[in-house]
């Protein structure tokens, strides 16, 4: 028989990852609800998932590729931009969704017990469907431009995982802070906007003078985006130097672990202050 002991928690605590696994079915349902509800009563429905990345790619191509003539290595600019927009769009929408998630589910948090980690996690997972559709679109573009598919594409899931972990790490911090300080809600659009320009999405890392490129390594998203460009287009970018890539992976891991601990430590007050 299951025994539960309810006590005030003291000091360090376990991350309850086992409990998250036990509640995986609920996680699945939350993701499913999010997806199903998101495009309900829209005329275009799932078509939005195609339109959004397509339109932003066209705008960036026009502005940066054609007007400003940003170098795009040995790939056409639209492909160059899209290969980075894939992880970037996934990351930014997942981060935003995760940040709003706990506050948005206040009615669940105050009425039902389940590991709260599930809430931001569902925000991270539901973006994967959009990602898959965008990726399909990318393959169509590759076919149109008659570019070869590289073997390295098989490593793409690893870089996607990195994007997920980064979004989760920051999402944990921001969603927990948002419960206490609603300022985070106001802040998140700025964070996302500034972050995009700080990440080599519309430009390549080779745009920076070689001796300063490593600075990009402090941005955990650099590793993700450069990884995508390498796997999809064979552009080595920062991977040329190596260690800045690992630096950005390291930053992700630090944010993730500290985010998990912070979230777990503040989680017990969610129902009281939300």
């Amino acid at each position: 028989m299951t025994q539960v002991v309810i006590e005030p928690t003291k000091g360090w605590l376990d991350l309850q990852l086992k409990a998250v696994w036990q509640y995986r079915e609920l996680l699945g349902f939350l993701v499913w609800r999010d997806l199903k509800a998101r495009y309900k009563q829209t005329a275009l429905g799932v078509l939005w998932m195609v339109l959004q990345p397509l339109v932003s790619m066209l705008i960036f191509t026009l502005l940066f590729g054609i007007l400003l003539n940003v170098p795009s290595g040995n790939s056409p600019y639209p492909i160059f931009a899209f290969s980075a927009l894939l992880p970037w769009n996934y990351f930014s929408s997942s981060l935003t969704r995760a940040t709003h998630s706990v506050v948005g589910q206040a009615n669940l948090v105050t009425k039902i017990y389940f590991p709260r980690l599930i809430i931001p996690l569902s925000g991270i997972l539901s973006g994967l469907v959009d990602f898959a559709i965008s990726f399909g679109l990318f393959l169509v573009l590759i076919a149109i431009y008659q570019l070869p598919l590289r073997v390295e594409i098989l490593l793409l899931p690893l870089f996607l995982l990195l994007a997920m972990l980064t979004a989760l790490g920051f999402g944990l911090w921001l969603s927990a802070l948002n419960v206490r300080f609603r300022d985070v809600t106001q802040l998140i659009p700025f964070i996302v906007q500034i972050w995009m320009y700080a990440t080599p999405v519309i430009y390549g890392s080779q745009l920076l003078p070689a001796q300063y490129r490593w600075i990009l390594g402090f941005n955990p998203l650099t590793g993700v985006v450069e990884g995508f460009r390498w796997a999809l287009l064979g552009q080595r970018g920062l991977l040329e130097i190596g260690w800045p890539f690992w630096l950005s992976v390291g930053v992700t891991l630090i944010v993730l672990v500290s985010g998990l601990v912070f979230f777990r430590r503040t989680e017990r007050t969610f129902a009281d202050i939300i």
Partner: protein
Amino acid sequence: MQPVIKVENLSKLYKLGRSQHRADSISDLLVETAQGLFHRRNKTAEEFWALRDVSFEVQPGEVVGIIGRNGAGKSTLLKILARITEPTSGRAVINGRVGSLLEVGTGFHPELTGRDNIYLNGAILGMHRAEIDRKFDEIVAFSEIEKFLDTSVKRYSSGMYVRLAFAVAAHLEPEILLVDEVLAVGDVAFQKKSLGKMGEVAKEGRTVLFVSHNMAAVNYLCDRALVLIHGKIFFEGTSKEATNLYSNTGFNSHLVTSMNIRDRERTKGNGRVTINQVTLLDSANQLAASFSIWEPFAVEMEIMSKDFPLTASMWIIFNSSTGSRVLSAFQYDDDIPMTLRSPTNHLRVYIDPNIFSPGIYSISVGSFGKYNEFYDWVDNAIQFEIFNEFITGKPFDHRLGETTMKFRWELL
């Protein structure tokens, strides 16, 4: 036998100052931190013990009611046991799978269909997919919404919404069920059905902790009940004792069983006779302010008279909570004049059962002399409550009209 729930010295402290008017945005925090550098923050954060040293045990298969007025700590207790919020001190040990039902329709998404929401809500309440599949037809039948199963829930009437939500919740099968006031939803017919379902759950031998304002429901469902007052257990005993105590001592909302109206403002009257005190009594002559529909009760008045003997005649008006005059009764209808023979007199009016519909009523009292001379008139002297006793004895069959009366019916 090992108790299913063992609660030891459970306490929960809320710091009102902290969550309400202390830093709620980062700029507030910065300002306060800056202030804190210069002068020490006075530690006057209001503290509020929602629960204080609560201890009790629940044995397997017991159905225990928790009663108390709003803010007494009932919901806090349930939320701690449901692991939604943490206690400040103390501990509770629970042996078994817990299902909590603190609200119906938690997690319902208005855009999704009834069918989708059954699965979603079921999962949120802790049911597995296979379990929901198995009970799906039963849930739909119970909710009576077959025709609208594939309609967005936002198009439902509130009644349909609540029925569907309760139907899902009612099919939860945990070993221990925590229920908070969820029976007070829907129309009367559905409430009856819901209560019947809860009764079945209780009879299946599951352990249930049941918070309610409905004394009849507590009496019907529970073997034992706790009365909470200001976060402490005030009484623990059989549900009959507990509900009597709760009703009779006027713990229910803000009802009192006896009211001194000597210094109250008079609507009219020359003061030759004054009504000092109005007291409510149940059929067993106990102080009470809540009565079942089927229960006769009495209103007692303490009447002061300046000169005696004096012929006076009393009257009483019942007002509904919306302020309308529902019913009046006049002593002179008896055709026997009352003569007051001492300075202090006690008069009791016996009210027949089955007159008032469920709700809260107030009583206005007054006194006439001969030739309709107004001696006294106090409006809204005291309030009482008639509750829906739809289990024991007669069910309340939602009638039209504020009062109902027994007449003589003759087939000619």
